[in-house]
């Protein structure tokens, strides 16, 4: 099964593998959310959404619906 960014727990790190380009805002790409980059989930808001990530040294909050479109390879258990 493929892992997406939405499935990560708080504190978990992963490498971005691929994403659905039509559903990812360009702004997020420009902040460094690109295949090959390291992403870490720093905080998860109450009710599980949005999530607060560090990707490419950008600290940014995105909604789960966006995170679902980002495939990752989990690094830390």
């Amino acid at each position, binding site marked *: 099964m493929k892992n997406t960014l939405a499935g990560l727990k708080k504190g978990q790190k992963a490498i971005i593998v691929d994403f659905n380009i039509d559903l990812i805002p360009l702004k997020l790409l420009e902040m460094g959310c690109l295949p090959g980059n390291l992403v870490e989930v720093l905080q998860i*808001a109450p009710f599980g959404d949005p999530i607060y990530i560090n990707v490419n040294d950008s600290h940014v909050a*995105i909604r789960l619906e966006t995170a679902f479109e980002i495939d990752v390879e989990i690094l830390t258990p």
Partner: protein
Amino acid sequence: MAVQTIKISLIGNPNTGKTSVFNQLTGLNQQVGNYPGITVERKQGTVRLGENTKGTVIDLPGTYSLNASSMDESVVIELLLNRNDKDFPDVAVVVTDVENLKRNLLLFTQIKDLEIPAILVINMADRMQRKGISLNIPYLEEQLKTKIALVSSRKGTGINELKELIVNYKYLPTEPCLNASSIDPDYFDKLRQAFPNQLLYKLWLVITQDVNFGQLERNEIEKSSFTKSKTELKRLQQKETIKRYQFINNVLKQGQTVDTAMAKDLRARLDRVLTHKVFGYVIFFSILLLIFQSIFAWSSVPMDLIDEGFSWLSSYTSKNMPPGKLTELVTEGIIPGIGGVVIFIPQIAFLFLFISILEESGYMSRVVFLMDRIMKRFGLSGKSVVPLISGTACAIPAIMATRNIENWRERLITILVTPFTTCSARLPVYAILIALVIPNRMVLGFFNVQGLTLMLLYMLGFASAIISAMILNKVLKTRYKSFFVAEMPNYKLPLAKNVAITVIEKTKAFVYGAGKIILAISIVIWFLGSHGPGEEFKNAEQIITNEIGNTQIDPDKLNDKIAAYQLEHSYIGIMGKSIEPAIKPLGYDWKIGIAIVSSFAAREVFVGTLATIYNIGSGSEDEATIKERMKAETDPETGKKIFNFASGLSLLLFYAFAMQCMSTLAVTKKETNSWKWPLMQLFGMSAFAYLVSLITYQLLK
């Protein structure tokens, strides 16, 4: 020798301290305006650069890249692509944050591709040591083909070096840092052949943007065979972004060293507390409570002073100017009109003082993060929190604060529901009505019923905003994709200068936005109240004197009686009477009708109008007197009190819901660029107010 003027554009990502650099460069020599036709703020200032040189600096809206996704951002691109624009910069000053250099350089490399002379400002240099960052400046300058100014806008260092670089802008290299066209050589070759006179990167930007600029060129390109599907274009943009990051990463690998052990910082620890699922909310609501408490405590003193000052000015001018129409216009139209605007400045300034401190410190972004899920359920965004809080001061700056909501649908809903929040103009109305119809006693030992009612009205404001958002969310069918990207900036100590400038700007937005309209309508209402058709108005003095006959009467009282009679037969009195059938079921008489009509200038006019109608006499808007008079008012037919619990509550609710603010309608029109939405606010809110008041009165009477 003539003075040489250099045109400078300040460009940078949000949260890089760009505005602080702007403030350092220009001091208070700045003007804020709007770009023609759109509401994006345009900040310009001047800076002295030397004996015979000065600079005009434009602070362009913060943008992450040259790919526009909002109105603010398209302004930047429009300017940079149009060499004929009168503001086209001689030199671009690109501001970056030393802690986010990698991401900030993306925009820089794009600007270099446009072959505009560019200076790289690395801001917040004072943090380098603490964060364990060191930079190889000569190497970076060589690789990025630019000159670098290490600046700390917080400490004010490096500004002189930056000025020197600006003066010598002609020596800056203009070649690009990397070859972006290698992402699809075939495509770009064809493009180059088709438009040999155009800058390649400029063509590419024009092709990929959704915004309309350089329309002629765009049409030209679209006719040709260079159109690609949206997905293809976005893929290429992704490739381009990756390529740029590759370049930046390579440069930074040698040019920057970061001691990661030292980079561990406050952020993580503060985030853990401030976004905690329990403490996060507790802290947020405590801060809110504190803010509201202090706004009321602090602003009552200046507000009383302003109130007294304007009544004094009004009576002073009426005594010292020759009697006549002009004097009446000044003392009864213009001065109270201006007073009605100025009185709200303390509350608005205090609220924005707090909001800008919270925003500057980086805390507001955490609130956005905490609240997004809850707000999303109602069709709003986490970013709607700031407008909704601002709405308790005034809906105008609040609606303007919705601009950073990326999603148009969420932004629109926020704009539409913000006027429900209890703004400061509702307070005087609430205060007098509550004092009149709500008993002043304690419940449960320590809750004052009157205070409790006021609090409930505040909560009612928020609740109705949220509920109507939910309804709009169901009703509105727009096909905008929802997306939400909120940067979580590092925590910073707010800079006093930046906070002060924000407060001044927001207050100005109110004074000029609302002020003009409130003043204009005050004058119109004065006119309608002091002129009337027919004999009754003209001969009011005669009629009243005859009525009284020979009974002895205090001349002041006589004048008040005449004034009240005149008002009854003035245009506005006629308007009040003609709507009486419609408002009778709500428990109001024609006098309240007049007050409601004049409230369309601004709600607080209600109190002043009633004072005149109940012939308390102009000038003495003493609350106690008005209250006494309102209390004594009875219905001539039934003999019952006009202001009883039922009608009072119905009136409170009417003011809570009705859209009675022309200035808000005007700003909604401006921000949504359509009459549809302000009209919807006007009729939707007012119809709802009518319905609620009707039910309330009919049930309680």
